[in-house]
């Protein structure tokens, strides 16, 4: 099977885009991973902010 060369050109972040949806299965998987990662990052940031506050 041919591999999609255009994969690399589509920027996949939590915002998604029509380009991401047009990639089909792989686009959806990566987009959701990006969203999950962003949520995780936000949680970590929140935690670190809280711990800073506590230390103060």
């Amino acid at each position, binding site marked *: *099977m041919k591999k999609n060369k255009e994969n690399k050109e589509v920027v996949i972040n939590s915002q998604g885009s029509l380009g991401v949806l047009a990639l089909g299965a792989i686009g959806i998987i990566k987009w959701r991973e990006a969203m999950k990662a962003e949520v995780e990052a936000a949680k970590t940031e929140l935690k670190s902010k809280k711990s800073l506050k506590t230390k103060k």
Partner: protein
Amino acid sequence: MAKSAVKKVLVIGWDAADWKTIEPLMAEGKMPALKKLMEGGVYGRLQTLDPPLSPMLWTSIATGVRADKHGIGGFIEPIPDGTGLRPVTTTSRKVKAIWNILNQEKKKCNVVTWWPSNPAEPINGVMVSNLFQQANKPLGEEWLMPTGTIHPPEMIDELKDFRVHPSEITLTMMVPFIPNLEKDKELRKDKRTTAVMKVLSHAATVHAVSTHLMENTEWDFMAVYHDAIDHFSHLAMKYHPPHRKHIPQDDYENFKGVVEAGYRFHDMMLERTMSLIDEDTTVILISDHGFHSDHKRPLSIPNEPSGPAAEHSPYGILVMNGPGIKKGGQHVSGSSIIDITPTLLALYGLPVGKDMEGKVLYQCFENPEQAEFIESWEKVPGDSGQHDKDMIEDPWAAQEALKQLVELGYIEALEDDKLVQVEKAKTESEYYVARNMINGGRIKPAIEILDRIFNETKIIRYGQRLANGYLTSKKYIKCGEVISQLRLLEKELLVEKKKEREAKKLEKETGEKIKGKKVASDPFANSEMEEPLYLDYLEGLLLLALNKPMKAQPLLEKVQRKNKNNLDVALNIAKIFNIRKKYAEAEKQFIKALAIDDRSSAAHFGLGLSYLRRNMLEEALEEFLLALDENFYKPNSHYHLGETLMRMKDYENAANAFEVVIRLSPGMTKAHKWLYEIHTKYIIDPIKAAAENEFIKKNIKGSVYIITGLQDAGTPLVMKMLEDGGMPILFDEEETVTKNEKLAAYGYKKVANLSKDSEWIELANDKALKVYVEHLNYLPAHFNYKVIFVTRDIEDIIQYQDSQKTTGKSATALSMKKVAALQNRIFKAEEWIASQPNIEFLTISYNELIEHPIESVEIMCEFIGKELNNAAMIKSIKKNKVKTE
């Protein structure tokens, strides 16, 4: 194709995709993937079926048969337990789909969200049903799939996360559809915005699951159906450029980009899909119907079930590319959605079922070879991957059985409103199936259905189609009767509406609620749609069929004033001008028709004919070629192309054209006659000439001109006209003593004995012969007949007959009996004539003859095709009309 069968086929369905929307986008470079697909293969329009309702159409695409055979008759069906209605299901499909046939042939098939495909069938592959993408819970809650959504069920876990929830659609994804969303927060709450989000999430879901299956399963056949273009178009085609006056400017600015973005998104998905296939895969991209995007967009949607279908246009798209398919972007014509399954079978080198209604699209094939045929795939045993037989059922029959159980007291009755709903849905489904049957030329059973449901419901739409069915089957009196009934219904409706308006006015004045019947408005009344003034249109067509062109013309012109964009109205007015030999006027109307649809084969054909009759041969040639470009399978276009080429003395190409006529319509004697002439006079070929002559001799012993009608309808006058015009006639000369008696009779005694002895018919060769309608069906088949059917209002005939004799019976009672008997005779005669390939017929109205003798004589002479003395014939009418009245 049998020897070079393809290995893999991918069918992509884009519901409602239309070239008229695609072409400008492609010209601007906005649909590169589709352009590439077209340029590497073939493309063209794909004719839809009537009615253009998607579940029926996609099932016809997948089976090669119409709704009465495949069993999917609309959008909904009753739930077998009688609890209400549900979307149509695969268990109602009565025949094998292409994937069932391929399953039997040991091919692995994947089917994604085909409509209908729930419950998923147990095929040797994966089937994802059309309920897969429907989100039934808010985002975050567990989103269960309805039973039967996926086969095999063990793939549910693997596939469920490819569903995109509408709430997951982000602003970034939406901005290409509605750019103002970026700055306008209120617009984000607009229900049209949320509807676009939902459609986009469905499209993304279908694409995600199909790309996953393409990459992760083995398959020989894959079918992927997208409904999003249809849904984007129903949502926002009204806002698509150019702007129309009645659309609020704000709405236009906000939603004008939805359709374009929808198409471009499909092109992006196509690009990805194409990147996932290998070079052994043949791709077929189709839509089931088109969608009006220009001046033909309706101003409002009919207030009836399936009303939105009024926005559909009759042509979808077809693109084929890959192994087995011609290369180079060639345009192909004459394709219909019903042809897809036979074409797929031929591509795989499998035989086509003789019970399939479509044809193989050989014109798309690189090396076309005659497909093989079998009686029916239904009789071929093997694992077809269909549901178990006990699951397959006719839901309407199940509903009837349920009703019987209620009547017997075994189960409790349904709630009244549900029963009414189911009954209404059943009638509506029967109406769709009847329309589908008319579309397929099965007029008689369609009329039976329409007659029943119209009489039961008095719904105007049903009556309109019934009248149309009678018209198509040449049952003109019946057609007229239904039109009269519809006129009465229309009047009643107007009275009811008036009452309703008055009641509303009174309510306003008094503040009290007035009880009364709510009037269901005629969906086509007052709307600038395809079908306002439909009754006038039908009546116009009826008059045209009865050869009353002068009466039909003002009626159709009235309809045209209200329906400037109706192609059929323009074509019929043009036809009238062609009949009346007013070719310049006809040309104007055909050009008008082409302004409505520049790809109308009928308009190009008619325009060509109007040029040919004026000896404008170059112009005629161009138009016939354009007509054939749009519909290759029309023998008449090839025939007149041949006639034009003959006049241009291009005998070689003329012969080619007539050869095609014979391939398409082997019995068309006129084409054989031309070929005989060519091969005896111009391209001398004694063998071919002998073969043509043999055919003509064998098949046709001669031509007889039959003048028929009811007694006292005016047949003797027509005989007299023909005699005066120089036409040889056959009658019992010795029986006629005086001129008056001759005029009254013109009979030939042996006609009455036709049922027992028809050998004498050779005496009538090339002559006119009077035959009353009751003897017509005894005419022997080895002659050609040109039948002139003389009609006259039955009341006039009876009055005339009554004036000729006195009886003791009540005149009224006698007349009613007579009317019924006379009508019956006419029905039988019309039915018989319509079913005879060796009969051409022309209806001449006695009254029209008297009122418009010049044009009537011209029409009659054109039909007869002989040089007659028109002036003498006209004189004959004026001189003799009194004697026959």
